[in-house]
């Protein structure tokens, strides 16, 4: 049975918006030209590729359902209270079982000694063997050899998948235009090679983590790699949902203030100056604190912990959104004021077009580039902000998988002797990759959309 969490629904909306925007761009030649600048740029193309992999993971983690189980007592099928996602099903072999406690990456033993009874009276302190992974090499007894063979097999699998995809895409012209296809691939070799490498990384990680804990296990023996992958959804949701929440405010108020001007402008300016003058961390902290109190005192009947955690994530996005629209609003106000004076808007005014239709026909299409640049730019900042907020305990629910929570837990692990470094490392790695490519993407987008970036010389 499918379950739709609140954030799922919003995430679907985001994906739909994204898809319809892509369709819109494909129909609009000048937008298509601008976007093609992003893809011509190598870092731009690569970052789109990486980000879409992340998006796909987040999407598959946003399709939730409850499992059917046969209830022995009542003799009928019921649904578990546990909610799992499509991603959980795909990654089932990885996270099915968990160990007792910490174990380091690729290790076959636990990280700390335990007392084991060897004989009746003889106790010995040893590193106990891991139960589920690390001792079940598929191809060779030696670890390094085994890893190597696994990667080679993944390589073959990747090749096979790519070949199938190639057949599906080019099945019509496969034998007719072989030369043309080859030159096409050679011209775009960078992007296809990147695609291949990313796919290879995914498949080999998957194959490896069936046999090993690639990034170790945490305190309760859960696979850290699995935790990091699950955190992707949280990071992306915070980065995108927040903007979806703030965009209507920013666009609507910004255009109104800039285009209508006068009294409306004064009020809107007052609102955003006031909101802006409170240091944002404090504003967010206060809002979330009050939300926490509210949720603690008014326990709404949640079916389970998932929905409660989900609601908190949703509210976090709302609060971040409500406190972050001011910057974009001010930019749009300035741009609308400029457009109000521009000649094509005045020409429409001489036709007697109403203000609303001028806004829809002329203003909105010509401020969208600012919106896009800001949205993309904000994304990485929000992902980073989540970690800091979770560290201060005002971020997502402690039960939600998130990099912030992993870092928060890692503080204690770092002061342990010997230290447990892999949780922190995993969070660092995943966050770094996502934020880095988001930043590179935003650079490419800004270069393409900023009118100052493309200059023509006489």
């Amino acid at each position, binding site marked *: 049975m499918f379950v739709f969490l609140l954030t799922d629904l919003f995430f679907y909306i985001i994906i739909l918006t994204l898809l319809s925007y892509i369709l819109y761009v494909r129909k609009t030649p000048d937008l298509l030209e601008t976007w093609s600048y992003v893809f011509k740029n190598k870092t731009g193309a690569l970052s789109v590729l990486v980000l879409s992999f992340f998006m796909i993971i987040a999407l598959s983690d946003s399709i939730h359902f409850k499992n059917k189980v046969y209830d022995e007592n009542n003799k009928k099928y019921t649904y578990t209270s546990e909610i799992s996602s499509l991603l959980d099903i795909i990654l089932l072999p990885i996270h099915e079982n968990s160990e007792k406690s910490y174990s380091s990456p690729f290790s076959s033993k636990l990280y700390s000694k335990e007392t084991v009874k060897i004989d009746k009276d003889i106790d010995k302190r040893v590193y106990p063997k891991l139960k589920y992974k690390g001792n079940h090499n598929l191809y060779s007894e030696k670890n390094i050899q085994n890893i190597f063979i696994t990667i080679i097999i993944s390589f073959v699998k990747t090749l096979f998948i790519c070949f199938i995809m190639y057949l599906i895409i080019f099945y019509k012209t496969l034998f007719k235009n072989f030369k043309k296809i080859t030159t096409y691939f050679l011209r775009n070799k960078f992007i296809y090679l990147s695609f291949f490498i990313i796919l290879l990384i995914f498949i080999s990680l998957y194959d490896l983590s069936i046999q090993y804990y690639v990034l170790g296990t945490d305190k309760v023996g859960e696979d850290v790699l699995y935790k990091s992958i699950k955190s992707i959804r949280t990071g992306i949701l915070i980065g995108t949902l927040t903007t979806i929440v703030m965009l209507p405010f920013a666009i609507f108020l910004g255009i109104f203030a800039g285009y209508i001007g006068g009294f409306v402008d004064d009020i809107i300016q*007052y609102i955003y100056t006031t909101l802006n003058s409170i240091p944002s961390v404090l504003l967010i902290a206060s809002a979330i604190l009050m939300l926490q109190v509210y949720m603690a*005192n008014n326990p709404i009947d949640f079916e389970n912990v998932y929905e409660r955690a989900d609601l908190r994530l949703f509210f976090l996005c709302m609060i971040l959104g409500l406190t972050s629209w001011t910057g974009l609003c001010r930019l749009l106000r300035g741009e609308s004021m400029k457009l109000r004076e521009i000649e094509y808007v005045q020409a429409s005014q001489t036709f007697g077009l109403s203000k609303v239709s001028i806004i829809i026909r002329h203003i909105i299409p010509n401020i969208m580039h600012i919106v896009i640049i800001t949205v993309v730019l904000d994304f990485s900042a929000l992902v980073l902000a989540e970690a800091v907020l979770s560290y201060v305990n005002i971020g997502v629910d402690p039960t939600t998988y998130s990099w912030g929570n992993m870092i928060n837990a890692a503080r204690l692990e770092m002061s342990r002797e010997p230290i447990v470094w892999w949780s922190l490392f995993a969070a*660092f790695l995943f*966050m770094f990759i996502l934020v880095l490519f988001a930043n590179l993407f935003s650079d490419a987008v800004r270069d393409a959309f900023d009118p100052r970036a493309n*200059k023509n010389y006489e």
Partner: protein
Amino acid sequence: MIKYILKRLVYIIPILIGVNLLTFALFFVVNSPDEIARLHLGNKRVTQEQIYAWNEERGYNNPLFYNNSEKGLDAIQKTIFYEKSLKLFLFDFGVSDSGRDIKYDIQQRMWPSLAIALPSLIVGVLINITFALFFVFFRSTYVDYFGVIICVALMSISSLFYIIGGQYLISKLLHLVPISGYAHGYDAVKFLILPVIISVIYGIGSGTRWYRSLFLEEIEKDYVKTAKSKGLSESSVLFNHVFKNALIPILTGIVVILPLLFLGSLIVESFFGIPGLGSYTIDAIQSQDFAIVRAMVFLGTILYIVGLILTDISYTLVDPRVRLK
């Protein structure tokens, strides 16, 4: 000039009132004081008497806006709004929920915050400008290209990793300086070095990139061509012409955050155990001491607005085009 400043001061009053009302609504209307008391006392098995006593101790038992049981001025004065919100205008921050004098705490704690934030800012700006000028000098070469990529990479790392990594590397592995703590007087230096270094490194990525784009924007302008046509060398064009123009946004960007330096950095201070206002805020957030959070919101707002006014004034000092009336 003085007339202008006075005018600006008048202009900020509606903003302060707005912030005041907003925080009041957030802290007292969203949740009633009773609910907050219940949270502090533990959710279950709390009697109404206990809540009453907790509120009475902290003065939350009055009505929100209007006290029916009092007469005259007291009807307005003996309310939460007057006691807790309006008094902020007089810089009367009251007493924290745990019973400490907030104003005293703030006065004590703002200096350690400043001791970290000010050196971090100064050193950071100097380093960033140096790097930015370096990249601009070598613009559209590989030096610039890889410099920018390194900046983006540095920007993509969460501040938490810089702190945890720096603490681990310098304090735990190399044992150069203590991990955390604070001392007064000159002893403070050894506690301050590491947080300052980490704050500076954290800022390099975004700062250098930002300054670089400022310089590049200036370098495209027509007056640069004029300067070159006079036969000036590349470096004297860069330093005498471009730098002077780019300095305006840089300087004003610094001035606007100067007052906020008193608030310190939340994360850095709490990691390094610096008894500044940043860690004060974090402690308050974590122990849900709303009286302190409220005071800090108000203080932060005032400092921000002071920063804005200082920015306007600094424009008149550095930019001949701007004259305030």
